[in-house]
């Protein structure tokens, strides 16, 4: 067995494969042994009890999907009394995921979720901020900095900032999170998208717009992972469209220290375990002893001109 372990700041993971928030729950323990994962990432919760969006909440687009689930939440108490003891049966570290519509609410739930059994807190700052005309905190460096500073003072646990690919300033937002005290950034959440049923002329999602996830999101979030890994000194966790070993390796090569797998689990429920096995086999076959030999190993020096050209085209 090669050394698949990786570190996200102070958090040691047995392997770099973990689920993406909202695409993982206690229910998956019916399908495979959760101890095989690098970490357990819980569904985002909010302080208030929420039912979520109208249906249909999901639809398919070619080779991918869209969702507008709307973060249904049973609140912090439910998490404490139900999810926490359940996940405590397993060895991988538990990462809680939280969200809130304002900076103060965010800080409050961050404090409340700081409890024994939670190893790190992923902060879903890709959600709308009602104080900033509904724009997600992670859309702009200024709002990302403000919320991260407040969150930093609310907990001593490691904070992972989950970013959005909808921003035009990914590197600046990641830097703002680092400055605000984030211990890692997760790149990234879903991309805002839309689909229409031409027969009924109705939007395919009850919420009209929703988040694109799955294979078609991969090149976008991979690019964002690359940009953020270049811009910050804290670890970057890649996420978006990962389905195959090749996808995992690409994310690692552009600088991700670990990856999250979301939608693919819906298609192949054991995909995360398969990826751990395939990564191990790949490393053995290629005589790679340590994951650090892959992380950030992309050979991009020759391409510097192209990168500049891309920036000029923006």
């Amino acid at each position: 067995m090669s050394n698949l372990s990786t570190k996200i700041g102070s958090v040691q993971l047995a392997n770099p494969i973990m689920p993406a928030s909202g695409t993982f729950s206690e229910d998956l323990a019916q399908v495979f042994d959760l101890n095989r994962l690098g970490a357990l990432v819980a569904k985002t919760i909010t302080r208030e009890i929420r039912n979520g969006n109208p249906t249909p909440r999901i639809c398919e687009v070619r080779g991918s999907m869209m969702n507008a689930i709307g973060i249904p939440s049973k609140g912090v108490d439910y998490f404490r009394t139900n999810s926490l003891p359940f996940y405590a049966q397993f060895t991988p570290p538990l990462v809680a995921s939280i969200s809130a519509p304002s900076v103060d609410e965010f800080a409050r739930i961050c404090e409340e979720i700081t409890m024994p059994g939670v190893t790190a807190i992923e902060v879903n700052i890709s959600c709308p901020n009602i104080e900033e005309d509904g724009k997600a905190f992670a859309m702009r460096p200024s709002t990302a900095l403000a919320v991260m500073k407040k969150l930093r003072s609310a907990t001593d646990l490691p904070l992972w900032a989950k970013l959005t690919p909808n921003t035009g300033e990914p590197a600046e937002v990641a830097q703002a999170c680092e400055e605000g005290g984030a211990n890692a950034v997760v790149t990234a959440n879903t991309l805002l998208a839309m689909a229409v049923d031409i027969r009924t002329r109705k939007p395919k999602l009850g919420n009209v717009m929703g988040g694109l996830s799955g294979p078609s999101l991969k090149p976008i979030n991979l690019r964002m992972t690359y940009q953020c890994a270049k811009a910050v000194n804290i670890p970057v966790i890649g996420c978006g469209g990962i389905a195959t070993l090749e996808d995992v390796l690409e994310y690692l090569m552009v600088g991700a220290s670990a990856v999250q797998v979301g939608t693919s689990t819906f298609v192949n429920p054991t995909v995360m375990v398969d990826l751990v096995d395939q990564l191990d086999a790949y490393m053995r076959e290629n005589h790679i002893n340590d994951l650090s030999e892959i992380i950030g190993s992309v050979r991009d020096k020759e391409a510097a001109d192209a990168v500049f050209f891309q920036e000029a085209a923006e």
Partner: protein
Amino acid sequence: MTQATHHTATAPAAGALSVFAADCTVKYNAPVNAEYGHLIVDAPDSILGCEPGQFVQILCPVNSSEQPYLRRPMSIYSYDREAGTLGIIYKIVGQGTKALTKLKVGDPINIMGPLGTGYEVKPEWNHILLWGRGVGLASLAPLAVEAAKAGKKVTTIYSARSKAVQLPIDQFEQPGATVITVTEEEGNSGLDNIRRMVEEQIKENGVDAIYTCGCDLALIELKDVCRIYNVPGEVALEQRMACGLGIGQCCSRPFAVEGDIVHKRVCKEGPVFKILETLV
């Protein structure tokens, strides 16, 4: 068969695997008529440990003209643990089901299951009544088979648009069972007429429970009947699904439970729900 225990949809204990995604082999795949196909696969025991009312998620094959991505939920239409086979009836509507029509005997197909919570039949119930519409009949078929095996009398009312698109009813034709088929074409499938038949059964033969699948209008009528005659009833519902495992809350619907509105996942707490809890 579902005994008096409705599975409680709480989280499973660590280490207890109960859902399986397996490569199955196509044993039979042919059209039933212009609208429906019948697929039978060789399936492992793990998936065949299913109960009436449960469903599977099928990874439909990708080909040059159809590229389905997510799995497609399909009711378990038949299962035979001895022969090691599982059957589904699929209505051909879009990418996934069109792709299913192209499967040939011997082809592999990945199936995940068994999923969801099935029908509840209490041991002391003697006579159950089923009302199926269209492809909703698929979900009710294993219920008819298992109830007959348990010595219960099963009365089935099956309504279809026309004789030409009727599904086979052999699984319902058990010893002592009654099957009444009605069609729009014959003009006897009106809700009033079916409701009259249901009420007649309740009054004349005594009905211990009613089960339905496939039609919202039928559900509205049955909700009324269940309330008036105080007969328990269950319905298998459909909802757009993604994971099928209860993970994403993709398929939640509101229900009325003891005066509260409660959101339940069709793939987990369902697809079978108490008729009186539905909001129709």
